[in-house]
């Protein structure tokens, strides 16, 4: 393992310190936690707070999306491990200015359980809390008898839309309704070129041969649906857009927002080449692309690979939400 760290057991607090100290105009640490809250308190007044979080190792997610117009607070768990309810509860308290707090949870058993416990704690203190569980990763088969689909980079669409709405004064109920409208319209699929190494583990979660890729890998290196030989970008796009097409059932003229997300070790050059091919493919499908974003947004430590998220726009106000101005570290 070759990493710029000190103690593998202490990476999260040191990272959070570094992040807060170098962005003190945007975020501040919530005392005695590994959670951050907006520095700009004025921007939270009278608004519903939006709280998200999860395991660390996905930077800039989630702390990088805290700021006016987006998240109110973010909780940083251990690497690839859901944060604990007490920390989530502190973030809820720090985000509540009297209008309640909305939680954006990614669908992992750990996240769901810890956020639920935090929600219980908040309700015991009479803080109104509602939540959405995002499950955009179409690599996993959906079934009511399983954990269901994972929450991955498409979650950023949820953060952005809810953050914009909260900024404009939406109520907790409004946000819940909005989240239900967004949820079925975001879907993501990834391809990995290499596995990620958790500092405390010291070796990659999975390994791929020099010429091998894996479709459908999750953001903690959860297994995907197929391994094969490395393909050119256009062929990867063919496969991944094909999967999304089957899920969305594309119809000509439909509008979509697109995120191409680097998993951590994949250069921006490759992400732009991939996006170029995605845009060609969506044009072939006669879809209208109304919003695009490219970059390392929800990473998996040093994993190489890319995820592609689509958000079907059924209401043009969603585009306004996506374009709503924010002041965050990383959006």
């Amino acid at each position, binding site marked *: 393992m070759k990493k710029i760290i000190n103690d593998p057991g202490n990476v999260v607090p040191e990272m959070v310190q570094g992040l807060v100290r170098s962005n003190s105009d945007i975020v501040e640490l919530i005392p005695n936690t590994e959670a951050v809250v907006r520095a700009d308190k004025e921007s939270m007044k009278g608004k519903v707070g939006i709280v998200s979080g999860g*395991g660390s190792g996905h930077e800039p997610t989630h702390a990088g999306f805290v700021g006016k117009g987006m998240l109110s607070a973010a909780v940083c*768990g*251990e*690497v*690839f*491990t*859901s*944060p*604990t*309810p*007490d*920390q989530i509860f502190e973030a809820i308290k720090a985000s509540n200015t009297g209008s309640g707090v909305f939680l954006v949870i990614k669908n*992992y*058993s*750990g996240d769901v*359980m*810890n956020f*639920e*416990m935090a929600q219980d704690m908040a309700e015991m203190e009479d803080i109104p809390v509602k939540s959405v569980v995002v499950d955009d990763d179409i690599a*996993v*088969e959906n079934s009511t*008898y*399983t*954990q269901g689909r*994972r929450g991955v980079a498409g979650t950023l669409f949820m953060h952005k839309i809810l953050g914009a709405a909260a900024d404009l004064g939406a109520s907790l109920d409004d946000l819940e309704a909005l989240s239900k409208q967004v949820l079925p319209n975001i879907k993501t699929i990834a391809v990995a070129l290499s596995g990620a190494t*958790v500092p*405390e*583990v010291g070796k990659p*979660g999975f390994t791929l041969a020099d010429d091998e890729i894996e479709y459908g890998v*999750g953001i*903690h*290196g*959860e*297994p995907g649906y197929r391994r094969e030989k490395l393909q050119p970008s256009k062929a990867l796009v063919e496969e991944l857009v094909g999967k999304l097409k089957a899920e969305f059932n594309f119809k000509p003229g439909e509008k979509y927002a697109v995120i191409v997300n680097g998993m951590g070790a994949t250069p921006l050059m490759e992400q732009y080449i991939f996006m170029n091919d995605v845009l060609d493919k969506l044009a072939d499908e006669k879809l209208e692309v109304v919003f695009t974003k490219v970059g390392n947004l929800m990473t998996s430590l040093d994993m190489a690979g890319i995820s592609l998220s689509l958000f079907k726009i059924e209401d043009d106000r969603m585009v306004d939400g996506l374009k709503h101005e924010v002041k965050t570290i990383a959006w």
Partner: protein
Amino acid sequence: MALTVEQAKTWLEDFYTEIEAQKQYLSDLDTPIGDGDHGNNMARGMTAVHEDISDADFASVSDLFKKVAMDLISKVGGASGPLYGTAFLEMSKTAAGSTELKDLVSAALAGIEKRGKATTNEKTMIDVWSPMAEKLNSDEAVSEADIDQFVESTKDMVATKGRASYLGERSVGHIDPGAMSSGYLLKALVKVGA
């Protein structure tokens, strides 16, 4: 078969020692069908428990379990934190009335089932807690070998809850890491001979 504070402390200290010893093995079990952190997660939690209980006095088993629950809830995270935390929280509530093993284990099981919204045969720790509770409730003796066998039974199951569920059929052939750590916990309990 009622647990004293001393026995409960011994139980938890033994479990702490076992987790420290098996930390790597638990994470290795979590690698093929999970994210390879179960040993680290449990060790983080049990280190906090050990630090908080080893030199402290507790008025009751209920108080002790409450402390353990809080440590696990606030230190472990992931899936196992809320599950073990809830188990000890429920055992703490029950222990206010009874510290009979069957009552404690039944309370823990109910808490885990509620928290995880899972049931038996989903290849989770429930597949250890549930047969354990069943045997105790029918007043049968439970041996360490019995518990080993509960743990082992998860090997052939298809995971439908937790991270391992993403593997579907491919989860077969691997012991569930949470079942293994629950096995350590329950074997340590059997050993204190309450």
